[in-house]
């Protein structure tokens, strides 16, 4: 199916564990983004990527690692999960990088116990 997908949709893990959230888009968009959404904070940008092998930090990158070896995939890894990383994570993609043209995935709800 065409579009942007995230997996898993729900994840429960323990403090200190490594977790990887997957994001896949079928449009060959150049730009991809990772956000976290928390009550009272709206969405905050974690990392973004302008093309394969090019990534940049957003507003809240600490504790996260990203990679972009292929245009269509943009995995987000929490190397040692903490409770403060309990959140809903959204991946987005766009061709031009313009924020009005971003397409968002359905989100991954992550709980860190």
């Amino acid at each position, binding site marked *: 199916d065409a579009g*942007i997908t995230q997996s898993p949709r729900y994840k429960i893990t323990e403090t200190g564990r490594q977790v990887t959230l997957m994001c896949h888009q079928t449009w060959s968009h150049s730009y991809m983004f990772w*956000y976290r959404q928390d009550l*009272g*904070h*709206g*969405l*905050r*940008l974690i990392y973004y990527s302008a093309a394969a092998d090019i990534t940049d930090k*957003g*507003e809240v990158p600490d504790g996260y690692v990203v990679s972009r070896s292929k245009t269509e995939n943009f995995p987000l890894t929490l190397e040692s999960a903490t409770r403060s990383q309990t959140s809903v994570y*959204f991946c*987005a993609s766009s061709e031009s990088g313009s*924020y*009005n*043209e*971003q*397409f*968002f*995935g*359905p*989100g991954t709800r992550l709980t860190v116990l």
Partner: protein
Amino acid sequence: SQELEQSPQSLIVQEGKNLTINCTSSKTLYGLYWYKQKYGEGLIFLMMLQKGGEEKSHEKITAKLDEKKQQSSLHITASQPSHAGIYLCGADDDTGNQFYFGTGTSLTVIP
């Protein structure tokens, strides 16, 4: 960093009523975006405003950017249950290198 404060934080209205959501910035807005998020889903872009005093409408939703470009409002006329969701404003910072979202407004429309 830029801060976008939305008010109210949540809103419950009867179907058919009008409502307004506000987005206030700590700095001058260079591009103000409105999004809607259905519960459990990603964001959908609604409108973008750039010029002071600009106003745009789409169906029953109207967004305005004030002349000073520090506040935007989203007005829904004759609300329907399909309008329910979380509304978020977003804006570029003055460098154009960062994008910030507002704190969000949760809207419930009671049939």
